[in-house]
């Protein structure tokens, strides 16, 4: 391996490592909830949050004022706050004369803003920040005149730390010169990404995209950028080697004089600047069978090469202005002129003293060093004084609330107090979070029932398996209330990973959690007669084409703009009347069947032969000019055998072809190479065909596992509903975020149909009976779809329903409709701004109508709340939670440990559904805590980008998280951000062993990404996994008494 190759591999490896903390971003067609700090899950939660906050310039916890509101609303456990404070205090030396717990509790509950300042500039220039002497002097009502002047040299380490290291050079230049290179650079990179990664939105696409991101971009780059790249190529590229992205990255990093030990950190900072785009590129580069990435390749190294090139170009443009252009230059500047650097930093980061802003600006505008020196002394003195007074004021406000006198404190005590307050405010977020979680745990545990289910006299009218999604909890509760329904919770893909080839589409859609890759393909087929496309649909397509071209919109608006106006009025004024009518004008998807059964080898071989025959006939006509009647079956067979290498090219065959031997041999070669009639390709095709359908064994396995995992192994009802879910809304790029996460962000109906079809097969049932799962003949598995926006549950595949069941359909439909209406009534107040937990003010029918309108209204930014307020993941019997309303906050996975002695089912639940639940929970957490950075801001400003994401305005980073309308209400969190409280109902050792066996979940639990409770029904105890690594056991009954409520954090 040459040195160059080695260096390129090193660059690749470094970029790979640097990209790890950036979360993957899936295209929004199948929105996948993901923990924004997924790349940091190897760290404990608190540590990861701190790192994420630095990396993404975001907030990791809510502001104190919001937590205080939660405390007022009894959503925070005050006792836990006290316990946490006690624990904090116990770990420190006591402060004489100070009731520290009282101070800290007052700070948390009665002061709504931080007392100790923790911002950038204080970190940069600790020497300039208020010190104890300054605060003491301020307390005494005068300035700290004895304070020594600030030694500029003492600022150098802070400035170096802040401006060098892994910080991109242009960011430092912006901070020192007031330039906007970072913003300009981001804009240019976004444009490049939009051009290259477009997936059919643009009419005019970037040329040469087949060459890959970096090379295609280089080909269209403007003159100066291209000249820069030519220059790099001239100095770097070896003979015969094209300029590669790795070469560019290597060259520019050296040119910027960034020490190599900082490269990984530097790359991470670069990549995290546009973490949405970087996450998408990361995902795309690693996605298998993704059409666009297979055609147009691009990865983080390309992105970095583009970014660094543009950054260098922008820096070069400004070198004339006397700015440092390399890390080395900047280092020299810091060491030679720390006063100047400090003042510049103050001015251009906006932290300058307001009173002196004009003076500082004037001094920095070309005045001499003497002016700067004089100003530095004045400025730092004033700054210290201002900081000291501000610190005194904040401390004084706290002391007043505490009821203490600050004047009584001596210097050492005050110093220790300030230090303690600083540490406490750094740890405060976790304290609030634990106290919120404790309150949530208490309210859950007090409602749980460990009593065994009363015996049933007869089987239920209907058994219904819903997705574990939190939105299913409400409909399940109402369904159970309106009739003899028994419900279960199971991951919405029903344990069957399916790759669907939908009718009329040529690509596969994976209907399972993204953690899994489906092995089996299901084909959707129609038995309906193929009909002409309705005129309106064709007209619609034509309109779109007209809109997309360059000139035609000008004419189109004049000519047929009015039609669009009418459409708009219809959709706006009367969506419930207009939309169904409009829908009828388009072709309706006819009833379809799913091809579920495996093809036999003979069937697959026969299909392949037929395809190859058609190809060979076509090739003979194209290549040799033969007529179809001359290409008879025996000739085709002979050609095929020759191409596959099974037989020699016989003289009769050559004669039949009517060409020379050489030409015939060339034709066979072309059949192999161009028409892919060869053994290798045939094997691949056989493999692909082999993926279609499920073998009987597989079907039995999936049905058995699905039923066992929810504990439904006997007493089957006449109807067993398998209810998938999805949402329906208009004009909503985030629609798939409201669909089923367990189905890869798609509707769950297909999986329900697949499992139902399997479970209804007599052959499968026979095999299940052998395994002890006896499904009576009159039990029918019926797929259904729960529309979470309207709460309607619609039944599917009714044409397959036995006639003996038709008589019960009306009762079933009535029950489902009643439940849907009650559910809509329960949800409506929170959708209408009434806040969570408000009681209904409209009758069920009216609520249902409003919910349906929401689903059709294209101006509705919040058709539903989605999984907002999710807090719990409960694995256990339904009886555990049947008597309590969980307000749509719990993922409910049915589980009966008694049918799972080997813990295999529990481990499956932990591996898939729990991990997906934790991703969802964390996405909601961070989107609620900092919607601008981790969420995606308001939907109102969103525009679809490249058909795979959204941007804010016309140009921004890809918005990766959830929109404000999903997690915030009137600017305040609607979703209560907490870690997922996971409850497993099983004997303690059973549950513990299962967790220990699933490495990914063990990591999440140990690092505190989920809070874990095990409820042991056999001993009636609750075991909580504490963040210090131990288990705390308490009898369940204690949780029912609020005085003895869980004190999780007491030492």
């Amino acid at each position, binding site marked *: 391996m040459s040195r160059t190759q080695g260096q390129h591999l090193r660059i690749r490896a470094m970029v790979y490592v640097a990209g790890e903390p950036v979360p993957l971003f899936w295209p929004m067609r199948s929105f996948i909830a993901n923990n924004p700090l997924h790349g940091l899950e190897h760290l404990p939660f608190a540590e990861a949050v701190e790192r994420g906050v630095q990396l993404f310039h975001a907030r990791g916890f809510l502001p104190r004022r919001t937590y205080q509101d939660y405390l007022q609303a009894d959503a925070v456990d005050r006792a836990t706050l006290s316990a946490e404070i006690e624990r904090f205090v116990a770990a420190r030396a006591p402060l004489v004369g100070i009731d520290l717990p009282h101070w800290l509790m007052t700070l948390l509950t009665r002061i709504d*803003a931080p007392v100790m300042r923790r911002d950038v500039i204080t970190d940069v220039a600790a020497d300039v920040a208020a010190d104890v002497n300054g605060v003491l002097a301020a307390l005494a009502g005068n300035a700290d005149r004895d304070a020594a002047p600030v030694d500029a040299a003492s600022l150098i380490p802070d400035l170096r730390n802040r401006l060098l290291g892994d910080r991109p050079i242009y960011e430092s230049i912006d901070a020192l010169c*007031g330039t906007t290179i970072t913003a300009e650079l981001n804009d240019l990179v976004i444009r490049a990404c939009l051009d290259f990664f477009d997936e059919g939105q643009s009419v005019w696409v970037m040329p040469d995209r087949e060459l890959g991101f970096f090379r295609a971009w280089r080909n269209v780059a403007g003159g100066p950028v291209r000249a820069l790249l030519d220059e790099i190529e001239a100095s770097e590229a070896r003979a015969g080697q094209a300029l590669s992205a790795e070469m560019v990255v290597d060259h520019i990093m050296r040119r910027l004089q960034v020490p190599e030990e900082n490269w990984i950190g530097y790359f991470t900072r670069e990549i995290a600047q546009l973490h949405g785009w970087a996450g998408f590129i990361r995902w795309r580069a690693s996605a298998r069978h993704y059409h666009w990435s297979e055609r147009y390749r691009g990865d983080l190294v390309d992105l970095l090469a583009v970014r660094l090139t543009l950054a260098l170009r922008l820096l070069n443009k400004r070198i004339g202005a006397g700015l440092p252009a390399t890390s080395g230059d900047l280092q020299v500047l810091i060491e030679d002129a720390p006063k100047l650097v400090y003042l510049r930093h103050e*001015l*251009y*980061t*906006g*932290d*300058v*003293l*307001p*009173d002196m*802003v*004009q003076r500082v*600006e004037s001094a920095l505008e070309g005045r001499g060093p003497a002016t700067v020196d004089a100003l530095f002394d004045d400025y730092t003195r004033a700054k210290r004084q201002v900081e000291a007074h501000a610190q005194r004021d904040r401390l004084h406000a706290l002391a007043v609330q505490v009821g203490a006198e600050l004047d009584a404190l001596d210097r050492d005590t005050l110093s220790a107090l300030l230090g303690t307050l600083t540490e406490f405010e750094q740890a405060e977020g976790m304290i609030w979070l634990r106290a919120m979680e404790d309150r949530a745990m208490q309210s859950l545990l007090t409602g749980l029932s460990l009593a065994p289910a009363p015996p049933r006299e007869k089987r239920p009218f209907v058994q219904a398996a819903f997705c574990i999604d939190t939105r299913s909890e409400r409909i399940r509760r109402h369904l159970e209330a309106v009739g003899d329904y028994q419900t279960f919770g199971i991951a919405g893909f029903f344990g069957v990973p399916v790759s669907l080839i939908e009718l009329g589409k040529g690509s596969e859609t994976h209907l399972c959690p993204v953690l899994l890759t489906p092995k089996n393909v299901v084909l959707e087929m129609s038995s309906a007669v193929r009909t002409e496309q309705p005129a309106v649909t064709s007209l619609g397509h034509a309109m779109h084409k007209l809109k997309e071209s360059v000139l035609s919109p000008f004419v189109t608006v004049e000519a047929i703009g009015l039609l669009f106006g009418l459409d708009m009025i219809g959709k706006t004024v009367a969506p419930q009347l207009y939309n169904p009518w409009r829908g009828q004008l388009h072709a309706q998807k006819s009833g379809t069947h799913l091809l579920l059964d495996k093809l036999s080898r003979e069937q697959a071989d026969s299909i392949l032969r037929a395809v190859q025959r058609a190809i060979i006939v076509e090739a003979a006509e194209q290549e040799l000019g033969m007529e179809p009647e001359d290409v008879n079956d025996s000739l085709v067979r002979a050609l095929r055998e020759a191409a596959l290498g099974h037989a020699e090219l016989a003289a009769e065959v050559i004669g039949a072809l009517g060409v020379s031997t050489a030409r015939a041999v060339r034709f066979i070669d072309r059949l192999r190479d161009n028409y892919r009639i060869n053994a290798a390709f045939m094997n691949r095709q056989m493999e692909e065909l082999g993926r279609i359908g499920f073998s009987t064994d597989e079907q039995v396995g999936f049905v058995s596992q699905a039923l066992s995992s929810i504990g439904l192994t006997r007493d089957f009802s006449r109807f067993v509903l398998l209810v998938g879910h999805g949402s329906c809304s208009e004009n909503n790029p985030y629609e798939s975020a409201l669909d089923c996460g367990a189905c890869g962000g798609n509707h769950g109906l297909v999986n329900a149909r697949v499992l139902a079809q399997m479970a209804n097969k007599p052959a499968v049932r026979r095999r299940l009976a052998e395994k002890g799962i006896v499904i009576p003949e009159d039990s029918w598995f019926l797929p259904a779809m729960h529309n979470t926006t309207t709460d309607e549950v619609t039944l599917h595949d009714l044409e397959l329903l036995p006639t003996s069941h038709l008589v019960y359909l009306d009762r079933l439909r009535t029950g489902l409709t009643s439940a849907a209406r009650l559910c809509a009534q329960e949800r409506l107040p929170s959708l209408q701004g009434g806040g969570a937990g408000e009681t209904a003010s409209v009758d069920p029918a009216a609520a249902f109508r409003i919910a349906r309108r929401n689903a059709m209204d294209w101006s509705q930014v919040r058709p539903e709340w989605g999984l907002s307020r999710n807090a719990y993941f409960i694995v256990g019997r339904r009886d555990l939670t049947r008597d309590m309303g969980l307000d749509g906050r719990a993922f409910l996975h049915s589980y009966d440990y008694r049918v799972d002695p080997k813990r295999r089912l529990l481990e499956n639940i932990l591996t898939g559904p729990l991990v997906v639940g934790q991703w969802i929970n964390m996405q909601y957490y961070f989107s609620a805590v900092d919607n*601008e950075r981790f969420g995606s801001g308001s939907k109102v400003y969103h525009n679809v980008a490249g058909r795979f994401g959204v941007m804010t305005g016309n140009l921004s980073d890809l918005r990766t998280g959830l929109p404000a309308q999903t997690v915030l209400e009137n600017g305040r969190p609607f979703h209560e951000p907490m870690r997922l409280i996971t409850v497993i109902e099983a004997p303690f050792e059973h549950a513990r062993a299962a967790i220990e066996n699933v490495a990914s979940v063990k990591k999440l639990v140990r690092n505190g990404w989920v809070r874990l409770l095990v409820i042991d029904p056999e001993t009636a105890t609750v075991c909580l996994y504490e963040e210090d690594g131990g288990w705390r056991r308490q009898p369940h009954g204690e949780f029912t008494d609020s005085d003895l409520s869980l004190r999780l954090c007491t030492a």
Partner: protein
Amino acid sequence: MSTAIYLLAALFLPLFPLSMAFNQLAARTRQPLVRAVLLLIWPQLGIGLIALAALPPPAWFRVWALVTAALYAYRAIALRDVGLWIGFIATSAWSLVWLGGAVPAELALQALAFSAPLVLLSLLTGDLERHFGAAHTRLQLGLASVAPRYALALVMAILAAVATPVFPNFFTILATISSPVAGGDMGLSPLVIGSVVALVWLLWSWSGIRLLQGIVVGVGRERAVADMSRARARAYAIGYLILAGAGLELAGVLL
């Protein structure tokens, strides 16, 4: 004698470089009320002197005024401090009064029409300085997000200051452009003068928008500040309404 009077008047209806005196004074005056009084009184002194001269000013004075107006409007673009900006815009606007006609009463009215919105802005700037320490774009105030009432008041005040219809200075500018005096004795075509005045107006708007962009727009640094009280916001709103009403009234007088 009259030239000397006009030169003295050029100190109060400031023409460059005599304008530097006013701007120095305005920059040093930190009290909002004093600054407001200064804005009201200063140009009226100049108009008093013009009235004293009894003769129309020489043509070159008007050219000088036009150049001064353009110069200060152009320089205002680079300013980041609202207080300084008020001084520059006042200088630029008052220079235009030299083109406004020969009747002192009308000139006084025009000067007042230019001063009044700046007085309101000056008072608001005083409020901003009290709350935020300064009204300067470098402070990254992000007013719209941290103090929306202040933000709205500032937007309205700047719009008024840059002669947006229907504020009185807008009609004064129209009157200046359409004044029969303009151009007649200056050796310049009315089209040229009108174009320069329009350019000056454009530059005011440009500089005003830059200020708004720096102070109102963007993510504010988290400062614990209270927004403007409702009572004060109402007072400013009444001020803008009065200005707008005065503008409509002035349209009838001047046009």
